[in-house]
């Protein structure tokens, strides 16, 4: 058993209000430099929708992630020979239009225009070449457009639906949509790491954060294609690729990453998971429907004395083990089995898990206008607006059971608390729901507490870490930020 620690995440989609505060926090800190204007290391998508960049889930177009071929797991993008052949012309790149052309406005014209009959206007200009542009799209262009005939109907996850089913899904009063905040998943079997011809991408040993070494990156952009989540971006100014760094400078000083910290809905949880690295290969070779279960099996119980002993043997510091024992992520992913990985079928073993959104809470309207709770909750889930099929294709590689199980628990917790506080549900009904979900009242209380009332410390169990040493402090960070990426001419010295 080779135990490693991973700083993992849970996003509770049922709480996300789609306000984009996370995206802005990230943009202000990391990607407001030249060449990085179009990058959104954190973005929030409306689902169903085509996302950012457009159709990122269509791996026939972008060739991201891994494929199981004759019992072997291979990059979908290319093998070694093809990497060499395509080195100067990576065929599976998103275009600038698929992201969007970043723009700003000529605000100066508002103040400097000569006196005239008309009000001066601030025309939009491209932030790439400075020329006036017609704005055609943006990173969240289909925000809240759950029924849009351009973006929503072309969601790749709806491709197995007939036209009639789609029309029913998008008809008024049946329409559903939810928000999907996305950052780098810091995968255990990252496609970007495997595809890099320069060996510039690495996974930090102590916390599993995936980083691109700006000194080694040669800008071949294979990672851009090979990441199925399209979360590595090419900086056209520095000629190197960049990605979410999980705000490691903040983590190292005990703060939550900026997008986590700023989250208005408090949907984000961060904590350590201990996993068995020897099982990675076996875990990505199982058929699609077993992927999530296999990934959960890799994650080890930090309370098990055997696991603790093995972790110590593998060199994991005591402080990290303690953090793992108190990790909210462990509870959501393994203990309660509420949270699911995004697109496990890409076989990258993503370490960001999503609690599926429960839509709608109530789905029957009385003639008086008040809403009624369905008593047979499970049938209401089957009749619910959000099709389980859609969620299972998003979060469970098509395995409906896992999503249903997660939903059953969430509904049971709601009923249980409603019976306690509102009283429109009887205790028997609540207990029946709990029994159906296979959980006790104690677990329901715990889920309720961590979902609704968690403190900052409960949401973010940040493991102790040593800071990067030997960083050249000759530059003012603000100045460095304006000039280039995160490169430095002196290697960082590390050690716990």
């Amino acid at each position, binding site marked *: 058993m080779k135990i490693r620690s991973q700083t993992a995440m849970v996003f509770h989609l049922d709480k996300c209000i789609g306000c984009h505060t996370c995206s802005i926090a990230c943009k202000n800190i990391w990607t407001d430099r030249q060449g990085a204007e179009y990058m959104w290391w954190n973005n929030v998508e409306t689902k169903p929708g*085509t996302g950012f*960049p*457009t*159709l990122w889930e*269509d791996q026939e*177009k972008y060739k991201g992630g891994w494929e199981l071929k004759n019992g072997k797991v291979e990059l979908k993008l290319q093998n070694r020979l093809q990497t060499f052949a395509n080195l100067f*012309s*990576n*065929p*599976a*790149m*998103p*275009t600038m*239009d*698929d992201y969007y052309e970043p723009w700003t406005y000529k605000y100066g014209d508002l103040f400097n225009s000569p006196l005239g009959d008309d009000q001066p206007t601030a025309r939009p200009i491209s932030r790439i070449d400075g020329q006036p542009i017609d704005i*055609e*799209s943006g990173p969240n262009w289909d925000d809240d457009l759950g029924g849009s*005939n*351009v*973006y929503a109907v*072309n969601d790749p996850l709806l491709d197995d639906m007939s036209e009639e089913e789609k029309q029913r899904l998008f008809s008024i009063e049946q329409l559903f949509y939810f928000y999907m905040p996305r950052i780098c998943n810091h995968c255990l079997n990252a496609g970007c790491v495997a595809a890099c011809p320069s060996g510039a991408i690495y996974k930090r040993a102590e916390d599993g954060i995936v980083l691109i070494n700006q000194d080694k990156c040669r800008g071949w952009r294979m990672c851009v294609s090979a990441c199925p989540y399209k979360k590595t971006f090419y900086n056209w100014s520095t000629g190197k690729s960049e990605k979410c760094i999980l705000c490691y400078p903040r983590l190292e000083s005990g703060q939550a990453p900026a997008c986590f910290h700023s989250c208005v809905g408090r949907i984000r949880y961060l904590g350590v998971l201990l996993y068995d690295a020897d099982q990675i290969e076996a875990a990505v070779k199982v058929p699609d429907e077993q992927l999530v279960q296999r990934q959960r099996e890799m994650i080890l119980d930090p309370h098990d004395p055997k696991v603790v002993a093995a972790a110590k043997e593998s060199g994991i510091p005591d402080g990290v083990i303690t953090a793992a024992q108190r990790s909210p992520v462990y509870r959501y992913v393994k203990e309660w089995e509420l949270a699911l990985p995004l697109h496990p079928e890409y076989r990258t073993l993503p370490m960001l898990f999503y609690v599926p959104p429960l839509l709608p809470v109530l789905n029957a309207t009385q003639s008086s206008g008040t809403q009624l709770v369905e008593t047979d909750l499970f049938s209401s889930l089957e009749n619910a607006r959000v099709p389980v099929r859609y969620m299972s294709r998003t979060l469970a590689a098509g395995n409906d059971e896992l999503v249903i199980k997660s939903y059953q628990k969430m509904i049971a917790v709601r009923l249980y608390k409603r019976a306690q506080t509102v009283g429109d549900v009887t205790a028997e009904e609540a207990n029946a729901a709990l029994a159906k979900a296979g959980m006790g009242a104690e677990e329901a209380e715990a889920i309720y507490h961590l979902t609704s009332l968690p403190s900052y410390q409960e949401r973010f169990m940040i493991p102790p870490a040593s800071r990067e040493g030997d960083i050249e402090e000759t530059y003012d960070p603000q100045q460095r930020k304006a000039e280039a990426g995160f490169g430095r001419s002196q290697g960082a010295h590390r050690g716990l």
Partner: protein
Amino acid sequence: MTNKKGKSKGSMTLFIVLLFAVVLSGCASAPGKGAIPVSTKAIEAGDAENGRKLFMGYAHFENEGPPCMGCHSVGDNGLLGGGSMGPNLTDISERLTLDEMAFLLANSGSEISPVMQPIYTAHPLTVREQADLIAFMISSEGQSETDKEMIVVGISLAGTVGAAIALGFLYRGRLRGVRRPLVNEAQKELL
């Protein structure tokens, strides 16, 4: 101290000058400088067929000089003709006397080509090779001077176009955006 240093410097210069003198005199006496031109009489014994092989590079010169075809063309020899840096030699025997041709090939005498001299100084042609080459050039007299430069240009152009088409087909899916087609499709449906 200064005096001693100056003295040692002086002797060093002397040594270098002597070294150069030795090297230069060695060069001057080396057989490479100006081969013996072939006599007019010996040219008659030249083998035109061997001359053709030498000219086109099928056979090697004894002293490893480069074949003439690198810079010259003769008649319609060669699929793409010869080089075009030097003059076309098809009718050279009409323009030059046998002696002049021999002088040029041997790099000595009244006719010396400033281009060929540095190339063949270290790799002189033997008397026999000169005779064969001159015999070959006499035999080629009157052949048509076909200019094959256009063939080379044509092949290059066709190759470039062919490569562009092949690569274009191979990478036809590259940098094709997906968003704009979605929008166009949706707009078509509305109309």
